[in-house]
């Protein structure tokens, strides 16, 4: 019985880890942008079985008086085509995508599902409590395990912005929050009725492209994502991203310079091909090398956006269910789903193959994606990095690492540090065996305690310790009973 009980050691280690991990947070120097979790925010914004408003959007969107300069630009794309007004399909779109990302591995707790109306229980629904996205009624999207986080009138622009930016009332439960961190890949899917630079929420308000851009910028500043894929299926969906880029770069001194010099260019050029216009700047004689370096270090915002239609285009429904009497799915979403149906969570299909699968002829609109805020080449990014989940389990020595965000100045050391960190995390289980303790010692003195204790136990017979302990317990028990008697 002289052998060490490894399980016991483990117990102790765990105990100590728990004890000491709280101070560790503060000392952790890593805010690595390694991709280690996936989130999805799926939003269906339209209410009612069938939309009854028509070609007078000016009356409906009276809200936009707050933003007078966009008032004129708002026009309903739908006034041309009456068939495009029925909102069942939006819920079906969202639920189909919900099912897909769940199937590809994003757990329910990491999906924020926002449904503006309960079509399944609408009295006009021919199939009570069921939602289908296909005429064949093979797949009930509203079956078991659908966890709707925001429903009905909770789906507002305000709540949507709160979810994205993470500024919640303290009473909001964790399940309704987007608890992403700097290592998160977020899929943001939105569908509903949209127009030029807006997306209608419910029947009363709208999300403007400015609002979305602002939210994305805040998320970036708060390190709430590593990469963000915004997918929008509405009419004129592409217009919704118009402001995202300018908001992300306009605060930078360099880009404001860039913008001042080439205002027409700024919206179109990315931060990365900034270098191409370098010579131009040099020709102007501006000394801006330190700032340029800063930009390169900041890296790209990692925002990828795809919309179902360009400006002036409608997003069409795919087909009509003659039992339910409404169209059940939009074309863009239908072909997206068709693409994903062929995949499982281990497949390596790339984003570019998804984007290339959109055929403008079958879509009846032009799927538009912009990757100027995204630096990884699309053919090398698997779709599962957004639509699926990270498969490997990661052991960290620090819980809530996401909260430990260092000041921005440290960003300069990011690339190298990130690499080290990754290495460290992955090798951690072997650290003890190899006796390679330097890194640990570097980080915390508390581990010394652990080692000390461990060393002492190594010399002691565990059996003996157990006996002493047992004896003491019996002794204590007899005394206490005697005292009580």
């Amino acid at each position, binding site marked *: 019985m002289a052998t060490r009980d490894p399980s016991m050691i483990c117990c102790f280690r765990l105990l100590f880890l728990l004890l000491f991990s709280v101070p560790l947070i503060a000392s952790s120097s890593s805010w690595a942008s390694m991709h280690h979790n996936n989130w999805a925010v799926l939003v269906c914004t339209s209410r*009612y*079985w*069938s*939309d*009854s*408003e*028509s070609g007078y959007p000016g009356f409906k969107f009276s809200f936009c008086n707050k933003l007078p300069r966009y008032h004129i630009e708002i026009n309903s794309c739908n006034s041309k085509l*009456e068939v495009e*007004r*029925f909102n069942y399909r939006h819920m079906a779109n969202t639920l189909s995508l919900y099912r897909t990302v769940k199937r590809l591995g994003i757990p329910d707790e990491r999906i924020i599902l926002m449904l503006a109306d309960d079509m399944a*229980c*609408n*009295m*006009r*629904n*021919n*199939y*009570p409590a069921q939602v289908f996205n296909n005429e064949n009624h093979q797949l009930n999207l509203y079956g078991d395990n659908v966890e709707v986080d925001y429903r009905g009138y909770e789906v507002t622009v305000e709540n949507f912005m709160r979810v994205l930016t993470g500024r919640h009332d303290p009473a909001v439960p964790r399940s309704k929050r987007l608890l992403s961190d700097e290592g998160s890949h977020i899929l943001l899917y939105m569908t509903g009725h949209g127009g030029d630079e807006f997306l209608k929420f419910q029947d009363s308000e709208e999300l403007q492209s400015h609002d979305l851009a602002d939210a994305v910028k805040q998320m970036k500043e708060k390190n709430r994502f590593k990469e963000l894929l915004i997918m929008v299926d509405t009419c004129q969906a592409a217009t919704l991203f118009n402001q995202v880029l300018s908001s992300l770069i306009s605060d930078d001194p360099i880009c404001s310079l860039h913008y001042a010099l080439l205002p027409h260019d700024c919206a179109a050029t990315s931060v990365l091909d900034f270098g191409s216009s370098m010579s131009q700047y040099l020709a102007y004689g501006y000394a801006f090398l330190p700032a340029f370096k800063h930009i390169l270090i900041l890296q790209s915002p990692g925002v990828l956006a795809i919309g179902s239609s360009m400006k002036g285009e409608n997003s069409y429904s795919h087909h*009509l269910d*003659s*039992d*339910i*009497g*409404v*169209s059940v799915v939009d074309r863009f979403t239908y072909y997206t789903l068709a693409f994903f149906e062929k995949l499982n969570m281990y497949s390596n299909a790339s984003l570019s193959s998804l984007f290339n699968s959109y055929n403008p002829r079958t879509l009846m609109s032009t799927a538009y994606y912009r990757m100027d805020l995204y630096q990884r080449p699309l053919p090398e990014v698997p779709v599962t990095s957004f639509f699926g989940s990270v498969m490997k389990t990661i052991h960290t020595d620090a819980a809530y690492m996401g909260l430990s965000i260092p000041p921005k100045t440290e960003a300069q050391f990011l690339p190298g540090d990130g690499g080290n960190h990754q290495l460290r995390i992955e090798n951690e289980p072997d650290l003890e065996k190899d006796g390679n303790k330097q890194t640990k010692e570097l980080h915390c003195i508390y581990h010394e305690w652990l080692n000390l204790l461990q060393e002492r136990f190594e010399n002691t017979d565990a059996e003996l310790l157990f006996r002493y302990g047992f004896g003491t317990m019996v002794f204590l028990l007899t005394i206490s009973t005697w005292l009580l008697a």
Partner: protein
Amino acid sequence: MAVKEEGDTSQQGKKSRSRLILRLGALLVAHSGLVSVVCCAAGIIAFILLPVLANNTYISENALMPGSADPAFSSQEVLDANRLTMDILNRGAAKASGIEIAKLLREYIVAVGAESYYHKFVPRANKFHPLHFFSSTTDNLDLPANPSCGSFILNAVGIIRAPRGDGKETIVLVTPYNSQNTTYSDAVSLGIGFSIISLLSHVTWLAKDIVWLAADSRYGEYMTVDSWLKDYHGPAFPGETSRIVDDACFEENNSDSLDHIKVEGHNSYVYKRAGTMAAALVLKVVDKKEKEERDSLSIYAEASNGQMPNLDLINIAHYLAVHRQGLRVKIGSIIYFLKASWVKLLGEMLQHITTLAKLLNPKWKLDITSADYVEGTATLASSIYYQALGVPTGSHGAFRNYQVDAVTLEFSPRSSLNNENVRSAFLLKTGRLIEGVIRSVNNLLEKFHQSFFLYFLTAPHKYVSVGIYMIPFGILIAPLPIVAAALFSSNNGSSNKDGSWKWLQAAKVVFLIHLWAMITSLLPYVLLQLPLVTPSSFTSAWAAVAICFLLITYLILWSSSIDCGWELLKSVMIVAAAIGLSLMSVINFSTAQIGAMLIVPMCLLVKPARKQTQGVFAKALMLTSNLALLVVAFPPAALLIAKTLFGASGNIDIGDFWEWAQILWSWNSATYMYLLWIHLPCWVLCLNIFLYPCIGSSSKA
């Protein structure tokens, strides 16, 4: 004067701004003759062009989605319909009591699991109440002193509650039938109504309740539906006398059938309601003997005083009938216009003109073929006529009183319904159409509001909206104020300063004549108290009393020696007519339009017969045109001319006028008021001017 000039110079800036419009007004007034000729001609031409300007209808409310769902109405429902039809014919024929079919229907309705009850009432005739125009409470007030108890009416009503609905809204289906003399087509229409109920009692998509009223139309379907609606909307208090009379009647006279009712329980008479009505469909079947190529559907929509249901309701019925069920959709048209050669000629001319216009600008969508024009004109004429009459074209009119959109759908099979195959196919189509319309309305989230309420139909799929048809009317009455101003100013300019108040004398005359007209309009109330029997005696009494009053009015005028020039009188009369027409155009546009076509030329042209004019030819022309217009614009004369023109043959009785007036006031038609308050005084004044002893202002001038 010096002060005035100073003021002029100081306000020159202001004056120069207002001067243009003043100058324009003065120009128009100065050339009032030309303006009135041009405006009248343009107004009438624009009116004739209305069929060309008609647009195609479209479904404006997106939520309706007609035809997007497949109909579930199947052969099973056809069997149901057949079963009930046969049962009604067998049982109804055996016992010719009015209650038998209602009982049978209730049995059927209860069998499919719907709620059901009897609605009973005692019919009462609509009496003339001068103070109760536009109010629907007249009937409750005049309870017959001794109601004939045998004549109560019993309707069976079925209600399907929407399984997951909130019970706030209802779609009403009405099938009128005659319980005394149940025809085969009545039985079929009841069969269709029941089959719809039996289908809807087990569908899952209902969001609105469905109410089926099998209305016993023994004494007129409108009255039955109206009384049911009255009970639906007005709460019945137990203390109300009429209800007690009803009950007493019912208990007394039906002791034989009472045992049956007792078995069913008293509950079967409890009036049940569903939510507010979203729309109502009145369903009728007409069995025609002659063969046609296809089954057809006639849509009747006109309610009282030219009110129309929302165009969307007609649109979905038309869309589903044409594009889903392959029915031929018909809308009432006046046959005279279909056959008249002048309309055809006009159509051909317009065809040429529109092709020319299209050469000028290919974007103008004006092209119309001659045949289209003729048909459009005939349909438009019927549309305007029924709106102008102000009498509803069916029991859907009763719904309009409660702001419920309703249409009558009258189906007629392509050949006799006795043929088994024809009947089955017919039932299937009809049932599917009604199911489709109900499902569309069921999708609605709001009241019908997207499409037009003010329109004329020139074809089942073509409409003229208020924005277009107001233009001819506006052009037509535009010269009235101009001519009035011209007459007034010419008269004022010629006379001295005292003359500026001379128009008050003319106004007095005009006012007295209008007062006379108002008294005349109220006379029927007095006449009805007299022991007169025949309509002709009523007419002659009415005319005699009216003429007496008119003579008295003129006596008063003579005695007070009011004498103003005919020009001032004409000017004030024209102003009164213009105000009257404008008001009427708001109440019932069609009446105002037709009235304006008669009144405006008469008002503009009328001149004293004895007035000297230069040429003999001009004088003769003026005289004849004046005479012709005076004859045509006299309401009874206009009625006679219309009768002979539109082929209502038979001897013309003066009693017709009384009956005609009776129809108008019993339906609370505003046309009655227009005729007697605006048209008649205007005509009398025109006659007055025509017969003016012309020594007036014109000779002075």
